[in-house]
């Protein structure tokens, strides 16, 4: 771990003033663009290197990936000259072309899902060309019988190995899954192929008011102390991580965005 670049997720032009201010304070090294973006959007105006990412391709779908969308992301990769591009190991729909049904939906952890995911990723690789793909998981809430993998971390590691992909470890998703499934944060790390983790994400989360013990991802909140603690434990165990990305939405406020970036900068400086 020679250096970790610090960035934040960017969804549209409304966020640009926040990013420019954070850049002027020396808090940002890059911008992660969540493709596809609207045609009038212009993240280049921020004046920082860009990293490509998408949450919209159903890599685990038995109906295959959306090639039109993949071609749009490819244009994004070329536009940003991204060193790698992020993709979610997820489903988005039940039938072909139903569209996204409210954030990424986790696959069932079976050999069949594994084969489908590998096939879809190979297809995606043929579209993206030489740009490496980094895979990310959503937060998990339940297990099922007849799982062919120990857990989702085992699943993503095996898929990444079989398709020679990198991994994005979303620390918030990882923490939420550990809490929801009663797992130890340290113990669960052993199932992740840490050598392949090239990027980490960090975002807010909240514990359910009605169902204590269960947590939800929440991009309009700052990362709580539990997530910072998890990050400080996990980061030193990742030998090849090159980027740490904050996910914070415009529904929040700029001072929290800046404070969170300051904390990340402090943490990364302390680790190196």
């Amino acid at each position, binding site marked *: 771990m020679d250096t970790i670049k610090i960035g934040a997720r960017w969804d*549209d032009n409304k966020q640009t003033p926040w990013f420019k201010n954070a850049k002027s304070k020396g808090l940002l090294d890059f911008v992660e663009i969540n493709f*596809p*973006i*609207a*045609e*009038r*959007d212009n993240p280049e105006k921020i004046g920082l290197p860009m990293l490509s990412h998408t949450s*919209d391709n159903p890599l685990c*779908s*038995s*109906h295959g990936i*959306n090639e*039109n*969308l993949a071609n*749009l992301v490819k244009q994004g990769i070329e536009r940003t000259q991204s060193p790698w591009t992020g993709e979610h190991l997820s*489903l988005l*729909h*039940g*039938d072909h*072309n*139903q*569209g*996204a*049904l*409210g*954030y990424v*939906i986790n696959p*069932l952890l*079976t050999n*069949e*899902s594994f084969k*489908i995911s590998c096939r879809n990723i190979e297809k995606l690789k043929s579209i993206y060309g030489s740009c490496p793909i980094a895979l990310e998981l959503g937060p*998990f*809430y*339940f*297990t*099922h*019988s*007849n799982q062919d993998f120990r857990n989702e971390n085992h699943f993503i590691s095996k898929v990444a190995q079989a398709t020679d992909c990198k991994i994005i470890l979303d620390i918030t998703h990882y923490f939420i899954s550990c809490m*929801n*499934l009663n797992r130890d944060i340290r113990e669960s790390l052993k199932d992740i192929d840490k050598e392949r983790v090239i990027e980490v994400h960090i975002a807010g989360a909240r514990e*359910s008011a009605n*169902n204590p013990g*269960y947590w*939800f991802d929440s991009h309009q909140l700052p990362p709580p102390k539990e997530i910072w603690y998890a990050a400080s434990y996990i980061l030193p165990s990742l030998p090849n991580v090159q980027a740490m990305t904050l996910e914070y939405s415009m529904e929040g406020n700029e001072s929290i965005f800046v404070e969170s970036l300051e904390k990340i900068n402090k943490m990364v400086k302390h680790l190196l």
Partner: protein
Amino acid sequence: MKSVQKLYIRLIFSDKMLDQFILNPKTIFELFEITNEERDLFSFVSEEGFKIERSGRQFLIAKELYKCFSRSLEAHSILSVKDFAQSEVLKMFFDSDFFLTSAFFPSIYSGLNGYENIPKFFSLMISSYYNSQLVWEDFSHYLIIAGSYSGYQYYSQYSEGLILNWDDQFLFLLKDHQSIQIPNEVVKEFQYPILQASLGLANFKTT
């Protein structure tokens, strides 16, 4: 696996399907052509985490839709996202084919089909008892915002405003939720797209 995926998604969103499944899983397995080997995968249905994940996912969609249709929903005493997340109309939406088929409008971000819940919910509303002028107005404002934002050809026609024809009355809707009634005889003077709305009209039409 396609059948497994289809049923899995149905169980996440449709309360009706989940109730039927709990009552008589065999019938549902047969309906979705789930093989005997695949049936055990669905043990998650009884897990607490599955119930919590479903409510979280449903709430996310409720939040997205409420932003657009709050005025229409208030007319039915649905006064907050929480109310909406528990409402019959949202359950009806999740049970319906509108939710689980492609949107007929392209996404404002990609120009591709099927990445928007708002047009799907609009289709349900105008095809049901909930159809009203307010639904059309809310959706018109969504189109205007999308038009000024998206940049994709499909939406740009709405970027400056549109005319809503409801019950032979013409309403000129502009940015920032402004609206002006236009006399029928001068409507042709306005060079804006016209949405043809009415009670009982199931299909979206524009002229």
